[in-house]
């Protein structure tokens, strides 16, 4: 691990860590994201292995200085979508969280906030798993600290689309959580 903060003395690293080591530093976050995408630990392991091998193989296409983390998450997500396409043997239809959100009336005001505070980890997990793949992805990438521009790069879409998907997905999640907060 490398620390570069001000106020901390440390010998400068002789050179940037090897590419493979930089990838391995992201493995924990990548696996966590994969578990939410696949909803299955064994599939998540396969997905991370495939994505990791693809990233190593595509090293020459990575521009040094650009965002390695976003690049790696993009490869993982593309690998996941490739797998889904192969399984379905038909074009992916775009899922939407709009209907889910529209089918619930929202709790209003402080009452909703109080109920959200009473939720536990398994409620959150269950509610997230009921979102569309895109909805779940955009929420988790946002929580991982990616900016909307970075999420757009990971999901291969426009920043405006990310903004609207994120707003839709959070509204749908709030509606789902209402069921668990009862």
């Amino acid at each position, binding site marked *: *691990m*490398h*620390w*570069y*903060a001000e*106020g*901390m*003395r*440390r010998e400068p690293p002789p050179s940037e860590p*090897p590419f*493979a*080591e930089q*990838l*391995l*530093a992201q*493995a*924990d*976050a990548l*696996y*966590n994201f994969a*578990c*939410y995408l696949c909803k299955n*630990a064994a599939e998540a*392991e396969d997905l*991370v*292995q*495939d994505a*990791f*091998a*693809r*990233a*190593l*193989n*595509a090293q*020459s*296409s990575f521009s040094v200085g650009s965002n390695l983390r976003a*690049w790696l998450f993009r*490869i993982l997500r*593309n690998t996941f979508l490739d797998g889904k396409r192969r399984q379905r043997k038909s074009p992916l239809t775009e899922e939407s969280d709009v209907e889910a959100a529209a089918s619930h009336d929202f709790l209003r*005001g*402080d009452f*909703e*906030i109080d109920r*959200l505070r009473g*939720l*536990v*980890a*398994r409620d*959150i*997990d269950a509610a997230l798993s009921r979102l569309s793949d895109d909805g779940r992805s955009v*929420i988790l990438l*946002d*929580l991982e*600290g990616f*900016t909307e521009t970075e999420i757009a790069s990971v999901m291969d879409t426009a920043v405006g689309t990310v*903004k609207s998907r994120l707003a839709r997905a*959070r509204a749908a*999640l*709030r509606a789902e*959580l209402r069921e668990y907060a009862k």
Partner: protein
Amino acid sequence: MSDCRTTREQLHDAVRGRLAEPQRGQFSAHLQTCSDCRQLFEREQALDQALAQRPRYPLPERLREKLVATAAAAATGSSRTTDAAHPTLPPPARRRLGRWAAVVVPGLAAALLAALLVRGVGESRQPLVDEAINDHLRVLYAQHPVEIESGGIHQVKPWFAGKLDFAPVLEFSGDEEFPLEGGAIALFVDRKAATFVFKHRLHTASLFVFRSQDLSFPSTTEHALAGHSAASAASRGFNVLLWQDHGLGYALVSDMAPDALARLAAKLTAR
């Protein structure tokens, strides 16, 4: 002052702490006067607090070892150009390599494999690192992670009096980047610890302060903090910093980026 439309467009950036001045000031001023927008803002914050309790799935050790082996195997392959969006899997090792490389390169790969395994697996076998992460997870999953909510360090520190057999030494009272949420008592290995909980955007950091007597701290000292050395480790998606000072041990744990955690550590140890 912003209007409702502008405020609602800025809501997510504000929740993420990404608004710069003067927008941030205008946003805050609008919330003071508009209860509807204030309620929307609080609702977004409450959703984030709920989401912060989502489970985090740690990387299985056997998968880490497989990834390290894959990296080592790739080191024996030759460089090829592929498209990242549709790359192919690596070819069998030693393709395109000359006879000399068949002898030398496996040695290099073994060295890389050993180095990565030591770095990736060895770190997670530090008992104090594991203890710190497990205790941090208890903080994350607790319904009420802090027993005393912070009104400032001068309110939190006295709360520990009579609950511990030592006085936790901490001067940093939190700031805008790392607000102090509060404190609690935890059990660290076999002894009581003072727990201080800090926030950084959506991330939570736990600082455990405990008597360091008879505990075996990691010998690695990667960097120095205001006069005393600290050991750092990464495991299960969390970063950990451990140091000792005047008979007390300190364990700082979070999933925030290493540079952010290092900034917090520098503030905690500044004199």
